[in-house]
């Protein structure tokens, strides 16, 4: 299993998946086909937890703009993390600009929905 790196585009974030346990998504997210775009990410995460994950996994998400299907996908993504949260230590940082109200609200929604996950809201 290898690290996965996807460059940012105008519509999609930079994705960096490191086997050392650092997962980061930075940028905008409004792809035309969201689920297709994120399929490699979801697949990698599944594989990662099936194989030998790092002692602690840190997920840094800094999404400045996202469409509603991305929002749905993030819920699915967190579902996947939550499934592994019992056996593995996972820390999630939802990073956003203070003035970005929709990012803040989305972060609050995630915290509310995923009681088992350790999601921190981090303002820049």
């Amino acid at each position, binding site marked *: 299993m290898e690290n996965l790196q996807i460059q940012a585009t105008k519509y999609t974030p930079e994705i960096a998946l490191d086997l050392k346990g650092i997962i980061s998504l930075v940028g905008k997210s409004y792809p035309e086909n969201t689920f297709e775009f994120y399929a490699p990410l979801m697949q990698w995460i599944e594989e990662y937890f099936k194989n030998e994950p790092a002692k602690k996994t840190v997920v840094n998400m800094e999404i400045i703009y996202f*469409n*509603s299907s991305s*929002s*749905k996908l993030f*819920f699915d993504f967190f579902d996947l993390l939550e499934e592994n949260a019992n056996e593995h230590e996972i820390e999630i940082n939802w990073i956003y600009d203070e003035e970005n*109200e*929709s990012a803040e*609200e*989305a972060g609050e*929604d995630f915290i509310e*929905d995923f009681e088992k996950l350790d999601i921190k809201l981090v303002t820049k």
Partner: protein
Amino acid sequence: MQTHENKLIAEIKALKEEFINTTDKLIKDVKRQDKIMARSDKRQKQEYDELMALKIEIEETQKEVVFTMGAIGESRSKETGNHVKRVAQYSYLLAKHYGLSDKECKMLEQASPMHDIGKIAIPDAILNKPGRFNDEERAIVETHAQLGYDILQYSKRELIKMAAIVAYEHHEKYNGTGYPNKLKGEDIHIYGRITALADVFDALGSSRVYKSAWDDERIFKMFKEERGEHFDPVLIDIFFDHLDEFLHIRDSMKDI
């Protein structure tokens, strides 16, 4: 019999549990979906509001730039006070009664005040000369139409493109004796024909250091004589048909 029954019950219980799990998951999904939708609706509204605010900001900025350019042109001409504002209103009125679209009328209202922008490139010594121009000076002053066009012609903005036409053609005459290109009749763009009439009407009715204002009778007589000569006959007819509206604009925007 007894064991068979138990087995069925066990199966049903398993089904029941599965059903509950599935429906729980479905309910959770629907709730999430609703939440996403509500957030999305809220954000769309915000984004639309922001977009509209930006649109207004752009339009206001454009108006201000255009008006300022008109004022610059005016500061270089012998017209003063509310001249460009009145020309804007007369042009709008002529455009409306001529049957141009609403959008064009509003654009022409903004573009027509820029007709003299080319005067920024005319030397002060000539422009500010008291009294009449000699032939050579007049020829130089007349280049302001071409100069205005040169300044504005490269813009890709609709409004500035329109202003370029106005600057270029506002001294053309319907009978082909105007400048800079001696265009004739309908070859002169309607924007040019409209601004020509609006500009002259206002200039004649205003008093200047070097001349007193013409009285209305003299202006009307001249307009009738110049119908189809200096001016588009259709526009002259519009002018007289709606005279009260033109006079109302003049009265409401007098120079103090």
